């Protein structure tokens, strides 16, 4: 649980930088705020805002964000047993509606650390709910700061997002096959970034799964 607090702190920093960067880039305050409540997926929010700030159309922004979030489908399969728990039809339904929304990189990473189902459930829900609160509060905070801070890159805030992803993924690199797959995927994604529309190189990274001597 200490780790959940640390992840919240880390994502809070990312939240502040996201809110600040969006507003500093010229978007109205409600854009990062609405994205954070309704989408609640940092990577896609940053990508969507990035596309719009780079002059892309809203459609391109939605497409980039949506493609990034396709990873939530395998995440959902991985944590299905803890998302769909609960007793009685109403509570079960409520748990599912909320649990579905808090499927994130972080909550899934924490859940997958445990083999025991009740521990998985506790880790998933603690992390997911805490992150939802922290993420939205810090994005709002960032929006407030955004008008004061004009050059967020000067503070290196753009490094925090990949650093968070890396810190989350490193502990899951347990087998040789997944290490090779992840390495190949990363090379593929970076190599294809100049060629494909934003978001697609990330999906191409899944091609890395075909190497590494699996099965």
């Amino acid at each position, binding site marked *: 649980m200490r780790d959940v607090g640390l992840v919240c702190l880390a994502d809070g920093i990312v939240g502040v930088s996201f809110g600040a960067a969006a507003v500093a880039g010229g978007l109205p305050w409600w854009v990062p705020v609405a994205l954070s409540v309704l989408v609640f997926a940092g990577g896609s929010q940053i990508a969507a805002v990035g596309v719009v700030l780079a002059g892309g159309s809203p459609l391109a922004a939605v497409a980039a964000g949506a493609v990034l979030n396709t990873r939530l489908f395998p995440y*959902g399969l991985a944590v299905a047993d803890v998302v769909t728990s609960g007793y009685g039809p109403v509570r079960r339904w409520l748990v599912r509606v909320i649990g579905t929304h808090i499927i994130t990189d972080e909550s899934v990473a924490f859940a997958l650390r445990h083999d025991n189902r009740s521990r998985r459930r506790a880790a998933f829900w603690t992390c997911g709910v805490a992150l939802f609160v922290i993420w939205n509060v810090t994005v709002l905070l960032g929006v407030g700061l955004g008008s004061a801070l004009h050059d967020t890159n*000067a503070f290196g805030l753009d*490094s925090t997002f*990949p650093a968070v992803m890396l810190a989350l*993924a490193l502990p899951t690199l347990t087998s040789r096959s997944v290490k090779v797959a992840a390495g190949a995927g990363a090379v593929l994604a970076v190599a294809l970034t100049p060629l494909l529309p934003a978001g697609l190189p990330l999906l191409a990274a899944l091609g890395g799964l075909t190497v590494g001597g699996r099965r």
Partner: protein
Amino acid sequence: MMPMTAIVALGVLTYAFRFTGPLLRGRVTVPAAAERLFADAATVLLIALAATAALTAGHGFAGWARPAGVLVAGVLAARRAPFPVVVLAAAGVTALLRLAGVP
């Protein structure tokens, strides 16, 4: 500009992606091998996301300051440093390099 309809559309699509996994899991039996594949797919995507976010901006190279900060963060993370230390190190290294004139 990003209209509210675009934000709602992304929200609905995102929720659909989140919803489909648990939904299918209840209906179909997922073999252990497939389950491992999905877990590995998640890891591959996270690493690829970290790599592209560290190295690229738009369709080009992000400059050296950002990947350098992320690299330091990665080394710290691999040595099990606390999360805020990892994140602040990333921002700090990048900010200092930019202060020194590195793009």
